[in-house]
């Protein structure tokens, strides 16, 4: 069966376009493209935590910030090279993710959302007020990044580094969610009691999801700090969190490909509305509410329905069925079966 617009082909086409883009793009366009790659990483990590493992956490912007700060501060304060500070920063963010998963075992739903939101605000406060380490509200410049001995400039080098990392981490996530580990995430989301009764350890599974999303956010934060050569608190605030949430909701909760599409689309919307600062948040709010109300599966659910070859198993969190009497259901279903 020929499926020219199947998921694999679309992703390959996107990858090909991303690979040749620097040949035709100007400096600004390359910057935006790189920003997209960073946000795709963020969205994939967040989707694993929220869409697959079902943990309604609001700490991803903070972990993005922790990755950026750790990468920057390790260079500025300790004189590490970027090539050491960057992976170390990602590991710090992953460790923080693991640590905040501990309260998550006891909290769920709104309470988890509130406590992670509080954590995010506390992180913001630390960025702002622990001036002896973080340089406070003004932020700090990071050392210029050099790709020597490779003969390429920083924007181009960073772009291809981001693209390469994205390809690897995309494939990692795609493999993960279709494995024993990914199924355990979905099991925890869909029914904690049943998951436990089948031997799934809740604490380990949740901690793993938090750690993975922290790692992806940390990688994104390190790349982001290098893109800007500058780290400041305001990039990692609540709007950042809304932005990331809207990406996974628009793209499709419980879909890795959806994270790619959602992040790409939202960055385009963000840039298109760059001139109208107040409008950005309104449009985001409308998109978020609109998708939640009218298209719960996001873009991917539409593609899956209408495009042949879009075979990704969509892990959409299902709404509980209306409380119908089981007997009536059984009678209705039993009659129709052969």
């Amino acid at each position: 069966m020929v499926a020219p617009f199947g998921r694999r082909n679309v992703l390959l086409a996107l990858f090909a376009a991303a690979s040749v883009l620097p040949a035709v793009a100007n400096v600004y366009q390359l910057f935006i493209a790189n920003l997209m790659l960073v946000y795709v990483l963020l969205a994939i990590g967040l989707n694993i935590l929220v869409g697959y493992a079902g943990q309604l956490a609001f700490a991803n912007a903070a972990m993005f910030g922790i990755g950026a700060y750790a990468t920057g501060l390790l260079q500025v304060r300790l004189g590490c090279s970027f090539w050491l500070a960057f992976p170390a920063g990602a590991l710090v963010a992953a460790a923080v993710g693991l640590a905040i998963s501990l309260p998550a075992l006891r909290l769920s739903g709104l309470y988890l959302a509130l406590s992670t939101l509080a954590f995010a605000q506390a992180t913001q406060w630390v960025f702002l007020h622990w001036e002896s380490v973080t340089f406070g509200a003004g932020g700090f410049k990071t050392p210029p990044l050099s790709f020597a001995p490779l003969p390429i400039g920083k924007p181009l080098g960073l772009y291809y580094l981001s693209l390469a990392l994205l390809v690897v981490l995309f494939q990692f996530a795609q493999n993960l969610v279709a494995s024993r580990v990914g199924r355990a995430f979905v099991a925890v989301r869909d029914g904690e009691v049943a998951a436990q009764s089948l031997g799934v350890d809740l604490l380990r599974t949740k901690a793993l999801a938090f750690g993975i999303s922290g790692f992806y956010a940390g990688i994104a934060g390190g790349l982001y700090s290098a893109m800007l050569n500058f780290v400041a608190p305001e990039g990692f605030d609540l709007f950042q969190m809304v932005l990331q949430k809207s990406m996974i909701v628009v793209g499709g909760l419980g879909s890795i490909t959806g994270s790619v599409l959602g992040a790409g689309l939202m960055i385009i919307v963000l840039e298109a509305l760059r001139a109208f600062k107040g409008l950005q948040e309104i449009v985001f709010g409308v998109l978020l509410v609109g998708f939640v109300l009218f298209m719960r599966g996001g873009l991917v659910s539409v593609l899956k329905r209408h495009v042949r070859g879009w075979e990704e198993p969509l892990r959409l969190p299902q709404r509980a069925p209306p409380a119908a009497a089981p007997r009536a259901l059984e009678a209705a279903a039993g009659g129709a079966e052969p």
Partner: protein
Amino acid sequence: MSTALLSIRDVHLAFGGLKVLDGLNLEVKAGEIRGLIGPNGAGKTTLLNVICGLNRPQRGDVRLNGVSIVGRKPSAIARLGLGRTFQTSQLFRGMTVLENMMLGLHRRTRTGLISAGCNGRRRRSEERAMEAAARNALSFVGMADLAERPATALSFGQQRVIEIARTLISDPSVVLLDEPAVGLSANRLSELDALLRKIRDQKGVTLILIEHVIRLVMGVCDQVTVLSSGSAIADGPPAAVRNDPAVIEAYLGRELSARYQAS
């Protein structure tokens, strides 16, 4: 110590002032099918929750294969070989039937984060093995053609059967079934009856079954224990238990039971 596979000794559990389990004793031998019956509120489901670790008893001991399991996490007890199903359907709604079955093998598999993400050798071989085992288990319960369906697309009765199959797939030593027949139509009920007999005859698994449908209990169980007010009031083969005056009294009350015995 006895040779019981599962032994429950003097278990007490109260929620506030309400004594739900009150000095309960129960011994289940390997290979046995044990029915648990009793009036509503007798503590049957709470007993299952104590065994599988969802409720912790305030006093007493629960031993599986001679190992005390009181205070362990439900997932740890499950990994020791204890499976259970629930009164309401607990299939994972975001997965297909096949994937639900593969989750049943979670405790039998080892693929970790790195192998899973990098599609390592362990992931590939375990995924293959899990899928084959899941399809086998679906054939065993006669539902092989439902493998690719979303769990939400199944009828109530099908969900019940898949849940039982998902529990059995990892070859647990003991399976707790909480009212498997609840809400089933007469046709589905006889299918369930046949399935339980098939499981008993072919799998050799120890089953503990809470059930209100007495026909099912009497037909399938080797031993029946009657619970009332948190303790076991009778124990024995179905036919003997059925005519036990204490049991009749627990169900009908003293006055009615006297009339019933007189008639």
